[in-house]
C-alpha cells in the first residue's frame, strides 16, 4: 500500500509547508490569531474524526471535553497551585477518564440515541462549569494564568501561532498513523458492519471506547491551548453550539479524512471572519454556504475534491 503511505506523508508535508509559509503573507498580527484559532479547532476536529469518521459513532457533546481541558489550565494554577503545563496534562487525563467511564454504557447506544446521550454529557459539563462559580467564575468566566515553559513566558499571537501549529502537526501525525494499523482497521470495520467485525474477532465495545477516549483527549488538549492563548475562558466554549461546530467541521471537511477535518476547521473558523462584510446577515450567509457545501460536495470537501481530481486524471489519461 505504497499509495497510502505516500498520501499520508503528503498530508503532513502540505500541512507543515502551509504552517511555515502562511506568516509570509500575513499583513498583521490579527491573522496570526485567526490562524492559531484554526489550528486549535483543527486539532479538536481531527480527534472527533477518529470517533465519527473512522468508527462511525457520533458525539454531540464534544465541547464538554474541550471545556474540561480549557478549565483545567484555568482552575489548576489559580486554585490548586498546579503549574499550567501539568494542568494541561491533568485536563487530558480527566477528559480521557470521563470519556472512558461514560463511554462504557453510552457507546452501547446507536445512531440517534447515542447522539442524544452524548449531547446530554456535553450539556452536563457546561452546566457544572456555569454553576460552580466559586471555582469557575460562573457564566462570566475566569482568567487563565500564562503558560511558562522552562522560564519562557509563552505569549503573543505569533508565538501561539507556532505553538498551536506544532501541536496540530503532532496531532495530525498521530491520527494519520492510526488509519493503517490493527486499531484503525478495526474502527473502520465496525463502522461498515459491526456484526462482521465482531465475528472477525474485533472487540467492538473496546475499540469504540478507545476512539471515544482518543477524541476526548484531543478535544481537551485543544481546549487547554485555546484557554492558555486567550488568557480567559467562558463556559460558552463547552456549550452545545460549540459541539455542533466541531461536528460541522468534520462533516463539511469530509468524514473519515484527516485532511478533511483540518479543511473543515479552516472553513468554519475563517468563513465567519470573511463574512463580517455582510454585517447583520453574516450568520445567514454562513448557514447558506454550509448548506451549499453539503449539497454540492456531499462527501465533504476533501473526499469530493479528491474524487473529482481522480476523475479528471482518468479523463486526461484516456
Amino acid at each position: 500500500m505504497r499509495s497510502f503511505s505516500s498520501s499520508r506523508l503528503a498530508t503532513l508535508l502540505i500541512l507543515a509547508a502551509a504552517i511555515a509559509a502562511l506568516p509570509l503573507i500575513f499583513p498583521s498580527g490579527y491573522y496570526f490569531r485567526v490562524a492559531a484559532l484554526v489550528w486549535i479547532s483543527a486539532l479538536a476536529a481531527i480527534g472527533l474524526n477518529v470517533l465519527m469518521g473512522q468508527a462511525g459513532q457520533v458525539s454531540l457533546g464534544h465541547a464538554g471535553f474541550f471545556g474540561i481541558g480549557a478549565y483545567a489550565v484555568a482552575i489548576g494554577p489559580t486554585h490548586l497551585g498546579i503549574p499550567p503545563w501539568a494542568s494541561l496534562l491533568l485536563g487530558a487525563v480527566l477528559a480521557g477518564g470521563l470519556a472512558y467511564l461514560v463511554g462504557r454504557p453510552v457507546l452501547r447506544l446507536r445512531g440517534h440515541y447515542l447522539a442524544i446521550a452524548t449531547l446530554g454529557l456535553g450539556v452536563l459539563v457546561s452546566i457544572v462549569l456555569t454553576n460552580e462559580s466559586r471555582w469557575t467564575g460562573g457564566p462570566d468566566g475566569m482568567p487563565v494564568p500564562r503558560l511558562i515553559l522552562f522560564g519562557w513566558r509563552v505569549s503573543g499571537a505569533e508565538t501561539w501561532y507556532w505553538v498551536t501549529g506544532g501541536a496540530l502537526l503532532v496531532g495530525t501525525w498521530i491520527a494519520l498513523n492510526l488509519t493503517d494499523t490493527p486499531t484503525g482497521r478495526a474502527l473502520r470495520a465496525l463502522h461498515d458492519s459491526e456484526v462482521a467485525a465482531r465475528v472477525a474477532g474485533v472487540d467492538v465495545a473496546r475499540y469504540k471506547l478507545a476512539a471515544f477516549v482518543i477524541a476526548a483527549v484531543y478535544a481537551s488538549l485543544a481546549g487547554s491551548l485555546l484557554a492558555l492563548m486567550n488568557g480567559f475562558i467562558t463556559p460558552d466554549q463547552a456549550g452545545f453550539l460549540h459541539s455542533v461546530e466541531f461536528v460541522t467541521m468534520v462533516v463539511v471537511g469530509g468524514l473519515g479524512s484527516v485532511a478533511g477535518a483540518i479543511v473543515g476547521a479552516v472553513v468554519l473558523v475563517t468563513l465567519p471572519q470573511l463574512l463580517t462584510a455582510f454585517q447583520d446577515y453574516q450568520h445567514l450567509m454562513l448557514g447558506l454556504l454550509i448548506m451549499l457545501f453539503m449539497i454540492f460536495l456531499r462527501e465533504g470537501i476533501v473526499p469530493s475534491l479528491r474524487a473529482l481530481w481522480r476523475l479528471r486524471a482518468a479523463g486526461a489519461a484516456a
Partner: protein
Amino acid sequence: MSLLVAENLGIAFGGVKAVDGVSFCAEAGQVLSIIGPNGAGKTTLFNLVSGVYKAREGRIVLNGRDVTGLPPHRLAALGLSRSFQNLQVFTRMTARENVMVGRHLRERRSVIADLLRLPSSERQNRATRAAADDLLRFVRLDGAADTPAGALPYGALKRLEIARALASEPKVLLLDEPAAGCNAVETEEIDRLIREVADQGVAVVLVEHDMKLVMKISDRILVLDRGRPLAEGPPQEVRRNPAVIEAYLGPGHAREAAHA
C-alpha cells in the same frame, strides 16, 4: 472428539420457536451441510452457534470447551469463524483491508503502539498484508486487492468473505449460502475452495440451497424443518428419506420421488 458440538439448541422470537432442539457435531476435515426449506431456521442456527444470538436452550462445545453464551469475538479467538448469507463486507475498505481485518486476532493489538506507529507495528503490518495477499490469491481475488470492496461484483464478495473468514485460521468454519446467486463457474470455484479448506483439517459447516453442490461436497447432511431436525446422515441416505422429500416437495410426492 468433535471440534464443534451443538446440543439441543433452541431460541424463540415472540413465541415462535425459530430453532428447537437441534443438535449436531462437526468433525475436523469434514463438511457438514445444513439444509431445509426457507424459514427452517438455518441462518438462525448459525447466529446461535457464532454467538450473534444467545441460545435460550442447549449447549455449544467448541474444541472441548463449553462456549455457550460467549460473544462472537471470544468465539473467534477460540477458533470459530463464519461468512454471512446477506453479505457483510466492509464496503469502504479495499479487498485486501477486508482480509487484513480477518487477521485481527493474529496481530498484537496495542492502541498506543498503533498511535505512535512504532517500527514493530510497521513490521507487523507488512506480515498481515502478506498473509492477506496469500488468501486473496487462494480465493483468486489477487487482481482486486486494492479495489474498494463496495465496487466488487457479487460473486467476488462471496469469495472475499470466505478469505476474510479464513484469515483468522479457524478450526471451525461456518459458511452461510456461499454459492447463493453465483453462476455455474463461480459455484465450481466455491466447491473447490470448500474442499481445500476441509482437506486442511478445518471442520466446515455449510448452509446451502444448491442441492447439486451439497450432495457432492458433504460428508454428512442435517435437514431442518420449521426449526426442528428432520433427518441426519450421509447424502445418499438423506436424499432417499421420505420425510425429507415431503418437507421439500409437499405431501404426496414422497412415493413419486421414491419411484423416480
